């Protein structure tokens, strides 16, 4: 496994972290989406409440199962509730 994930942060998620992208290490033991969100919330406490109401996309498609194992090079997008229009 090992490698890195690219995290894209939008709107309130971006503001909570202060960055619009993060490069995140993928451990040898692998990581599920759920484990990634837990780790992100611990690293950025202001992000935790945003994550709890956000949709999570991997490589342009929403994840319905947070037990999905992630792969090196995956692009993970954090989408807080939309407010376009």
């Amino acid at each position, binding site marked *: 496994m090992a490698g890195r994930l690219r995290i894209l942060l939008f*709107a*309130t998620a971006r503001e909570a972290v202060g960055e619009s992208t993060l490069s995140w290490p993928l451990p040898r033991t692998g990581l599920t989406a759920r484990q990634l969100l837990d780790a992100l919330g611990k690293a950025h406490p202001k992000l935790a409440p945003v994550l709890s109401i956000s949709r999570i996309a991997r490589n342009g498609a929403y994840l319905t199962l947070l037990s999905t194992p992630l792969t090196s090079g995956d692009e993970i*997008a954090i989408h807080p509730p*939309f*407010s376009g*229009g």
Partner: protein
Amino acid sequence: MTVLVGRRPLSLERAYRHLGDASSGGVVLFVGRVRPEDQRGRPLVALDYEADVRMAVGALRRLEGECARRFGTRKVFVEHRIGRLRVGTASVIVGAAAPHRAAAFQAARFLIECLKLEAPIWKTDRYRSNRRTVAR
């Protein structure tokens, strides 16, 4: 079908050209503009719009087939502007062309309602001095 998400100013004439189809007797266009107040009535200076552009375009493209199936539209158009938009500036144009006007009205309404629900686009309120992101 035309779906655009980008920074250039919106244009009604461009939208209308994309809906050009002589067999469609009715064209309905909706323009959303930056209102002068936030949801609590406080005066705004601007809204900053951002999008996950790839996924927003994908979500909006899926609406095309849905409109054709539900309403018999011949053409639809969606353009959302991103970046800092001052009060009164158009942030979104959606449009639909159909043989009859009832279908064009229904499709345009459907497009803007679905855009708000399904497209990963966000606005952040900008006041004279501070800032706040609003989910609507």
